[in-house]
């Protein structure tokens, strides 16, 4: 905990959820890489609140004071022009100019073309990131995401914490 995390907690309690508390983790899990990176299938998960425009996806529920624990799924060939972000808890100025600064889908495809990674996983994901009551996130959405990643047989995952 820092002065900044204390301030954020106070601000969230005042504006959104009076009972908000950080989830503090004690044990940190660890998995060893199974393959060299250059032969790995790598997943992408961002908490930037990205979704498909033109009513292909339901936008995230940014107005909900408890946040939105759900995620959106995209094919890895998705055109960045078809995406937008509806996050209500960070400054969208930069993401609106170039979504790669929070959801680096173009750059991850380049990592695959350059041979840094073997390939980008066929499906990539975005959460909204702001969740003050994480029960459904933990009990429902995260296990669902993990199952999808396992079914795609990903070797590693890159996450962006917005």
């Amino acid at each position: 905990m820092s002065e900044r995390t204390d301030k954020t907690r106070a601000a969230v309690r005042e504006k959104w959820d009076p009972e908000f508390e950080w989830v503090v983790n004690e044990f940190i899990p660890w998995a060893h890489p199974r393959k060299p990176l250059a032969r790995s299938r790598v997943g992408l998960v961002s908490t930037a609140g990205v979704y498909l425009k033109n009513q292909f996806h339901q936008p995230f529920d940014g107005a909900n004071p408890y946040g939105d624990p759900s995620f959106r799924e995209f094919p890895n060939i998705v055109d960045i022009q078809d995406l937008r972000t509806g996050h209500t808890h960070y400054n969208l100025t930069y993401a609106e100019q170039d979504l790669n600064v929070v959801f680096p889908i173009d750059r991850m495809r380049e990592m695959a073309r350059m041979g840094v990674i073997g390939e980008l996983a066929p499906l990539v994901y975005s959460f909204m990131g702001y969740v003050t009551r994480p029960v459904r996130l933990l009990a429902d959405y995260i296990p669902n995401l993990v199952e999808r990643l396992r079914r795609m047989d990903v070797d590693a995952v890159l996450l962006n914490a917005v």
Partner: protein
Amino acid sequence: MGLIARAIEAAGIPTVTVGVLPDYLEMVGPPRAVWCKHPTGATFGEPGNAGKQQAILKDALGALETMSERGTILPLGYEWRRS
């Protein structure tokens, strides 16, 4: 985000998390984390700076092969280039 990274890692899949606030990363405890001195909402740097975005991704992905201690939080040294 820490919760998501930890659950994926616990399922046997290595993760690396890219962030901008080291104190937040320390609190949420992802297995491997890297961070840059960038504003919130611009994790991978200035809009349109594809070269820097690539460099950060290479460093972050490289951490999957080089980091050996759980809970490592590595500063990457990139600085924000715009006012």
